[in-house]
C-alpha cells in the first residue's frame, strides 16, 4: 500500500479564457474507512491564487500552513501579492529542501497573473512530491484518481472556455472520475477564478 493512497484525494485544475478553475473531492478517509465528507483540499493564498493539495492528509495540512506562512511573509516584505508562477517556484524549492524525507503530497497551483503585455493570464502548475514542476496550458490532475481524471479531462476539455462553461466541464470531469475510485468522492467543491471574482460551488454527488 502506497503512502500516497493512505487518505485518497482527487484534485483537478483547468484553464479557460481569462479564468481558471480548480476542483477537488471532499473525502477524508483512513484506508478504507471514510471519516468525513467535508474536508477542504483547496486553499486560497490570495484572490488570484489557489493551491489544491493531494496526498497524505497530515502533510497536506502542514504544507498548507507552511505555504501560508511563507506567502504572508512575502506579502509583508514586498508589499504586493505573490505571483502564481513565483509561488509555484517557491513550492518547488520548499519540497526539494526535503528531498530525502519528503512531504507526501502533490500540489496543484492555479491562478491568474499579469504577464508583460497581457493581463490575467491563466496559470496552472503541479509538482511531484519532491518539487519537479509541470506546466501546461490545458489541465492538470493530482491524487489517487489521476488515471481516471486524465481520461475524462482529455475527452471533455476545450481551450478558451468561458467561466460558466469551464465550471460545467470541470465539475462533470471530477464527478465522473471519482465514481471510479473508491478512495475519493463523498462530495466535491469547485472554485472558478476570474479577474473580478471567485465563484465557489459545492457539488451534490454520490455519497459513496
Amino acid at each position, binding site marked *: 500500500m502506497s503512502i500516497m493512497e493512505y487518505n485518497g484525494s482527487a484534485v483537478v485544475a483547468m484553464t479557460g479564457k481569462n479564468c481558471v478553475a480548480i476542483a477537488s473531492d471532499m473525502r477524508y478517509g483512513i484506508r478504507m474507512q471514510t471519516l468525513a465528507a467535508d474536508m477542504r483540499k483547496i486553499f486560497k493564498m490570495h484572490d488570484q491564487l489557489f493551491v489544491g493539495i493531494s496526498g497524505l492528509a497530515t502533510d497536506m495540512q502542514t504544507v498548507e500552513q507552511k505555504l501560508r506562512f511563507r506567502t504572508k511573509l512575502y506579502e509583508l*516584505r514586498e508589499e504586493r501579492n505573490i505571483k502564481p508562477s*513565483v509561488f509555484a*517556484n517557491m513550492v518547488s*524549492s520548499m519540497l526539494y529542501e526535503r528531498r530525502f524525507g519528503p512531504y507526501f503530497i502533490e500540489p496543484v497551483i492555479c491562478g491568474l497573473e499579469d504577464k508583460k503585455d497581457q493581463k490575467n493570464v491563466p496559470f496552472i502548475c503541479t509538482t511531484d512530491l519532491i518539487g519537479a514542476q509541470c506546466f501546461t496550458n490545458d489541465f492538470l490532475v493530482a491524487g489517487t484518481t489521476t488515471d481516471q481524471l486524465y481520461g475524462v479531462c482529455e475527452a471533455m476539455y476545450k481551450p478558451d472556455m468561458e467561466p460558466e462553461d469551464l465550471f460545467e466541464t470541470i465539475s462533470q470531469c471530477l464527478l465522473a472520475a471519482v465514481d471510479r475510485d473508491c478512495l475519493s468522492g463523498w462530495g466535491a467543491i469547485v472554485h472558478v477564478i476570474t479577474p473580478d471574482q471567485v465563484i465557489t460551488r459545492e457539488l451534490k454527488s454520490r455519497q459513496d
Partner: protein
Amino acid sequence: YQRRVHGKQWYQRRVHGKQWYQRRVHGKQWYQRRVHGKQWYQRRVHGESTLRVLPLSSFSSFFTNMSGASYSLTTFSPSGKLVQIEYALNAVSAGKTSLGIKAVDGVVIATEKKPPSILIEPDTIEKISTLTHNIGTTYAGIGPDFRVLVRRGRKEASKYNLVYKDPIPVSQMVRELATVAQEFTQSGGVRPFGVSLLVAGYDEDGPQLYQVDPSGSYWAWKASAIGKNAKNAQTFLEKRYNNKMQLEDAINTAILTLKEGFEGALNEENVEIGIIGADRKFRLLTPAEIKDYIKETD
C-alpha cells in the same frame, strides 16, 4: 605580585614550582606563562588542565572561542550613541565623492576615480559594481569593505532567484544589504563596514535610488551625494533637481555636480558613471561616452 601586560592586569603566582601569571577572564580563571619562548595560556576545564597556544596579540580575541558567546565591539556610549558607527561615518566622509540622481526614465550613479598614481591601470579599478542585471551600486569609503558587501548582495540576489525564479526587487535587495550592515554592528568580534552605498535600480516599481549606511539604515533618494564633498554636492543637487528630469539631463547634472568639487580637471579617465534606463539593464558608460557627455556640459 601583580603586573600589567598589554593593558590587562595579571597576578603572579607560583604553581608547581613554575612561575605563572593568572587573570580572571569572563569569570573563568586563566593562567599565562611563557613556555619554550611561546606564550601559553592554561585553564582548568572540567577539573583537567587544558593548554592552548595563542599568540599574545590575539588574547583579546579570546572572547570568540571558549565560552561560545560572542561579544560585540560596538557598544553604547553613555549618551546613547554607537561610537563605532559614528567613526564608520567618518571613514565614509573621508572617501571620494559619489552621487546618484533619479530621473523619470532611469537612474544615474557617478563617482570620482582618482588613482593614487599615474602608473595604476585605470580600467582595472571598479568603483561601480553590478548586483543584478537591473541593480547597480557605488560607494564612498573603504574600497575592500565595498567589495565584501557587493559579494554578499550578489549572493542574496541569486538566492532569492533560486527560490522564487523571479528577479529580486530593488527594495528587497537594499533591505538585504542593510541587514548585513546592521549585523556587523551587533555581532561578536567584527567592526561596522566603512562604506555608504548608493544603490540604483529599475524594477516593477520604476526607477529607484537608495542609500545604505554603515549603521544599516537606508533611504530612498531623488538625488543624493556621499563622501568628501557630500554637503556641497547635495546643496548643488537640491538646486538643480526637478521631478521631470530625463535620464540624459540627469547624466549631465551628475557630471556638473562632480565637477564642482573636483580637484583638477574632470575627464573620462577619472570618473566612473553607471546608468540604468527603461531597458532595465544596468551598465557603465564607456570612456568615449563619458567624454561626449563632458563635452556637452562644457
